[in-house]
C-alpha cells in the first residue's frame, strides 16, 4: 500500500491508540500511526514520538496529521517543520475522531493527500446541517428538482442509474457498512446519492451515509449520474446483496 498515511497526535496514549483502532477498522490498508502521551505514559505530547510516527506513516504519498488539543498541534507542527521535506505532511484542524475516520476511508479509496485532508476537514460539518441546507435550497426550486428526480430513473442521457435496495444486514447502514459502500465506489467517476426517509446523502461521505440512519429492513434508493453511474449502482447492489460482508 502506498497511499496517504495518517498520524494521530494526542495527549493520551490510550486516546491516540483508540482513534487509530477505529480508523484502522474502516480502512485496513491505510498506515494510521498513533503518537499519544509521553514515553513514560504520562499525559502530554512527545516530539520524538510524533516524528517517528510521521516517518512510519509516510510511504511516499504524504501524511495527514490530526491532533486533540492545542499543544498537540504545536508539537505536531514543530515535528513537521523539522522533516527533511516539510511539505510531505500537513497538520489539520479537524475533529479528531470523525476526521480520522473520514480521512482513513478517503485514503483507503486511493485519494491523494489534498482529498484526504478535505475529507477530514469536511467531517467537521455535521451531515444533518448540510442536509437541512440542501432541503431549504430544494424548496426554492421545488419543481425543477422534481423534474430532475423524475428524469433520473430513465437514465439514458449522461449515464444515470438507479436502484432500490432493501438492507438485509444486521446493522443497516452503520459505520462499517457505510465505509465499505464509500470505498466500493471511491475510484468511480460518478456522483452517487443515497436517499432514505426523505433525506439524501452523498455516497462518497461515510458520515453523510450514517446520518441516514438506515436500519435492517429499510429500503434505500441509490441514484447515480456520471460516466460510471451504472457501475456504481451495480457495485453497491452487490455489496448490499452480500450483506456488506458481515
Amino acid at each position, binding site marked *: 500500500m502506498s497511499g496517504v498515511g495518517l498520524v494521530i497526535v494526542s495527549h493520551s496514549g490510550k486516546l491516540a491508540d483508540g482513534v487509530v483502532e477505529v480508523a484502522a477498522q474502516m480502512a485496513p490498508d491505510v498506515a494510521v500511526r498513533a503518537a499519544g502521551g509521553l514515553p513514560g505514559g504520562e*499525559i502530554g505530547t512527545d516530539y520524538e514520538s510524533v516524528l517517528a510516527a510521521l516517518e512510519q506513516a509516510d510511504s511516499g504519498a504524504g501524511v495527514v496529521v490530526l491532533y486533540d488539543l*492545542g*499543544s498537540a498541534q504545536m508539537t505536531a*507542527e514543530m515535528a513537521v517543520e523539522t522533516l527533511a521535506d516539510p511539505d510531505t505532511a500537513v497538520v489539520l484542524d479537524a475533529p479528531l475522531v470523525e476526521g480520522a475516520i473520514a480521512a482513513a476511508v478517503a485514503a483507503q479509496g486511493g485519494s491523494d493527500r489534498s482529498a484526504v485532508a478535505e475529507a477530514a476537514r469536511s467531517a467537521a460539518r455535521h451531515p444533518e446541517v448540510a442536509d437541512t441546507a440542501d432541503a431549504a435550497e430544494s424548496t426554492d426550486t421545488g419543481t425543477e428538482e422534481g423534474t430532475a428526480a423524475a428524469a433520473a430513473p430513465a437514465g439514458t442521457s449522461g449515464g444515470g442509474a438507479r436502484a432500490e435496495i432493501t438492507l438485509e444486514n444486521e446493522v443497516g447502514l452503520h459505520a462499517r457498512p457505510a465505509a465499505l459502500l464509500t470505498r466500493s465506489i471511491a475510484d468511480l467517476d460518478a456522483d452517487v446519492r443515497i436517499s432514505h426517509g426523505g433525506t439524501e446523502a452523498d455516497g462518497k461521505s461515510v458520515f453523510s451515509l450514517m446520518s441516514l440512519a438506515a436500519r435492517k429492513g429499510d429500503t434505500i434508493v441509490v441514484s447515480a449520474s456520471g460516466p460510471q453511474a451504472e457501475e456504481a449502482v451495480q457495485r453497491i447492489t452487490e455489496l448490499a446483496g452480500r450483506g456488506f460482508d458481515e
Partner: protein
Amino acid sequence: MGCDAGRVAEALRAGAATVAEHKAELIDLDRAIGDADHGENLDRGFAAIVSTLDSGVPETPGAVLKIAATTLISKVGGAAGPLYGTAFLRAATKLGDVSELDGAAIATGLRAALEGVVTRGKAEVGDATMVDALSPAVEAAERAQADGGDPAAVLSAAADAAKEGADSTVPLVARKGRASYLGERSVGHADPGATSTALLLRALAEVAR
C-alpha cells in the same frame, strides 16, 4: 561586557535553578486554570538542559541556545516545550555564530524569540499567555539597547517589563491554551507561562550583571 557561550550556559543554569525553585508556584498557578503540569514539565526540561551542558558547552552562544531549544522540545510534554523550544531556536538561528553577545544582539535575539512564540502559539498580547510577558520585555530590551545598554541593562529592563506583563494577565480572560476553556473563570489568575517567562528573564538578567 559581552556574553560569551560560557556566560549563556551559566544563564541557562540559573534559569534551571529558578524554575526548580519556583516549581511549586508554577504548578499551583497552572492547577488553578490549566492542567497543573507547567512547573513539572519546565523543571524536567531545564534539568535536562543542565545535564547536557554538564557534558560540554559548545563554542558560541547560538549553539548553546540551540541545545536548550532541542532539549526543551523533546523533554517538555505540554505547550511549553514547543513554545519555549521555538523561542530558543529562533533566537539561536538569529544570532548565528557570533562569539559574544552585546546588548543589541540580546535585544535582537529576544525579538526573534517572540516572533517564534507568536508564530507557534498564534497568541496576541492580551490573550493571557507568555506573549503578555515576552512582548513588553522585547520592547523594553530594544529601548534599553537603543540607549546604549549593555547585556545586563538590556536583560534587566526586559525582566522588569516581563514581570509587569505577567502581572497584567491576572485580570484577563485566557484566550489560548487549556485555560481558555475556563472562559471568565480564568480571570483572577496569573498566566503560568507569562510567569515562567518573567522568572527566566530575571534569572538571565542576574547572571549578566
